[in-house]
C-alpha cells in the first residue's frame, strides 16, 4: 500500500517536470501568434487604405498667373487681379505681391489704406503684411514675382519670398 502511493507521487513529480519547463501551452502559443499575425496584417492593411484618400496631385487650378498692371497704379495702391487672393503693388523699388489669404484661418483679407483687415476674426495687418492685432499667427507672405515683356508680371501664389523682395519692373 505505502509503496504504491509513493509510486504515484513519483509519477506526478515526473509528470510535473515534463510540463513545468513549458511556460505556455503549445496551442495557446500558436493561437497567439496567429492573432498577432492577423492584427499586424490588419494594421498594415489599414495604413495602406489610408494612403488612398491622401491625394498625390492637387486638383486646384495652377498657382501661377500673369497680370498686367494698369499704367495709372500709384505706389502703395493695391491691384487685385480678378479671382486671385493676391494684391500686386508697384513703387520705385519695383513690383511686389502680397498674399491676401489670412494666416489665421484662410479668409481673404481686404487691402485698406492702413494695410489689410480680415473680415473673419478681425486680424489687422500693416502695409507690409506684418500682424498688428488679432489672432493671425504670422505675417502675410510675399509672393514670387517675375517680370515678363511689357508691363506684365507672373505671380506665383505657391512660392513665398522673404518680406521686402521686389522685382525690377
Amino acid at each position: 500500500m505505502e509503496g504504491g502511493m509513493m509510486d504515484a507521487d513519483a509519477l506526478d513529480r515526473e509528470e510535473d517536470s515534463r510540463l513545468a519547463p513549458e511556460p505556455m501551452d503549445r496551442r495557446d502559443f500558436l493561437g497567439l501568434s496567429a492573432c498577432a499575425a492577423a492584427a499586424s496584417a490588419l494594421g498594415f492593411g489599414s495604413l495602406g487604405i489610408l494612403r488612398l484618400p491622401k491625394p498625390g496631385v492637387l486638383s486646384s487650378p495652377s498657382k501661377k498667373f500673369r497680370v498686367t498692371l494698369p499704367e495709372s497704379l500709384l505706389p502703395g495702391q493695391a491691384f487685385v487681379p480678378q479671382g486671385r487672393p493676391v494684391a500686386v503693388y508697384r513703387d520705385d523699388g519695383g513690383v511686389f505681391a502680397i498674399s491676401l489669404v489670412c494666416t489665421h484661418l484662410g479668409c481673404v483679407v481686404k487691402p485698406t489704406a492702413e494695410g489689410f483687415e480680415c473680415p473673419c476674426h478681425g486680424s489687422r495687418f500693416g502695409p507690409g503684411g506684418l500682424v498688428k492685432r488679432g489672432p493671425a499667427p504670422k505675417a502675410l507672405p510675399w509672393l514670387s514675382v517675375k517680370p515678363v515683356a511689357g508691363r506684365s508680371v507672373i505671380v506665383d501664389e505657391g512660392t513665398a519670398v522673404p518680406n521686402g523682395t521686389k522685382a525690377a519692373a
Partner: protein
Amino acid sequence: MDNLVRTPMTFWSSLNRSGMPVSDRGRSGFIFSNVFLHLHPARVHRWSLRWPTTWGLGIAALSAFLLTLITGVLLMFYYKPHPAAAYLSIKDIHFVVPTGRFIRNIHRWAANIMVVGVLLHMARVFFTASYRRPREFNWLVGMALLVVTLALSFTGYLLPWDQLAFWAVTIGANIAQSLRELTDAVGMTAFFDPGGLQKLLLLGSDQVGAEALIRFYLMHVMVLPLALAALLAVHFWRIRKDGGLARPADVGSRLPPPEGRVYPVFTEAPQKTYSLAAIVRGKTPAVGNGPENTVPAMPHLMLAEAAVFMLTFAACLALSLFLDAPLKEMANPAVPENPAKAPWYFLGLQELVSHSAFMGGIGIPTVCLVGLALIPFLDREEEGTGLWFGGPGGWRLALASFMFGSAAVLAVETVAINFGWIREWFPGTPQIVITFVNPGTLLTAAYALYSVWTVRRYDSTRAGAIGLFSCFIAGFLILTVIGVHFRGPNWGFFWSPSMWGGH
C-alpha cells in the same frame, strides 16, 4: 385553393407571431420576437419610466435622428454634389420641388434638435450621476455619438455650397491645419506637418472645392450615419446589459405605490433567470433580484417612447412651417461672407478660435473631450447615483459653479473686447506666447483650478466633476451667445445685429 383563401389570415399571423398580447408573457413575446423591438427589455423598472429620470431626452435625440434620415434620403433625390450644381440643386429643392422647402426645413430643424437633444441628454446623464460603474463604457459610447453627431452637422453644413457653407468649412479645415501654430514654433513644419496632413485628408486638396464637396457628401450621407447607427446599437444594448437605467440604491422607498391603471407589476413567477445562461455577473441587478417594481415594456415603455417621438416630430413640423432654412448667395472663394459664422453650436468655439486658432479649435476641445471621458473613471463614488444633482454639494454646488463659470467667462471676454490682447499691448510678442496665454486658455485654467478646489473642499471627485461640468456649461452658453448675437462684421463687438450697418 383553401390555402389561398386562408393566406390573408396566415400572412397576418406570420406577421404577428406572438398573438395579441393579453398576458404578461404575451407582452414580453411582443417585444422579444421582433427584431426592431427586441433592443428593448421585456420589462422596465418603474423608476426608468418617471419623466424626471430622463426627460425623454435620449429618445428625443433618436427621434430627431430618424427624422433626418428620412428627410435626408428625400433630399438625395435632387441634390447633386458638385460645385457647379450643388447650389442650384438646393435652390431647386427650396423653390421648385413640390414640398421641397418643407422637407429641407424639417431636415435642418431635426438636425438642430438632435444636437440640442444630445447635449441635454449628456447633461442629464451627468447630473443624475448615471455614468458610474458599470456604465463607464456606455458613457464613452455616448461621447463617440456626440462626436459623430457634431461631425454630421459640420459635413452637412457644406452641402448647400452657399457663402455660409464655403467660408465656415474653409475656416474649419484651416482649424484642422492649425497644429502648425505649434510645429511652426519649433520650426519643424517643413518635415513634419500633421496639421497640413489633416487638412489635406479632409479637403482632398489645398482649398475647398469639388474634392472637398464629394468627401463631405460621402461622409454626410453614408459613412457617418452608418457609424452612428452602429454606435446606437451598442449604446442601447449596453443599457440593457448594464441593468437598465441607473437608479438610486433605495429606489423601492422612493417610488409611490403603483397606480391602479398600470399593468400588474408582476403576476407570473419567472420561468428562468439570466444567471442560468451563465452570462451575467453578480452586480447585474437581474441576478438574485425578483422583478419587483418592473412593469411590462409593452405598453408602458412603448407609449412613453411614442409620446416623446410625437412631441419631437410636432416641434420639428411647427418650426419648419414657419422658419425657413437659410440659403445665402452662391459660394464665392474670392469674397468671404462677413461675418462668416459657423452653425450656432460651434460659435462658442469660433469665439475661442478668434483668440487662438490652435487652442480654440483643437487644444481646448481636446481637453474638454478627454476630461469628459475621464469623469466615470475618476468618480468612483456611490452616493447619489440616479438622482438629480446626486452627490456631495448637490444643486447648490451646481448653481454656485454655474455662477462662477459665468463670471469668469464674462471677465476674460470683457477684457479682451475692451482692451484687446497681448499683441496690442506688447507688439512683437511671439505667437507661441499668445497660443498658450489667451482668453480661452486662461478660462480653461480657471475652471480647472476651481474644480480642484471643489474636490478639496468636499473631499469628493463627484463634487469636483459637478463644479467643472457646471462651469463648462456656463462657458459654452455665454461664448455661444456672444458668438451668435454680439459678433458682427470683422468679428467686431456689437450690442445688437441691427448695428452691423450696410455691407
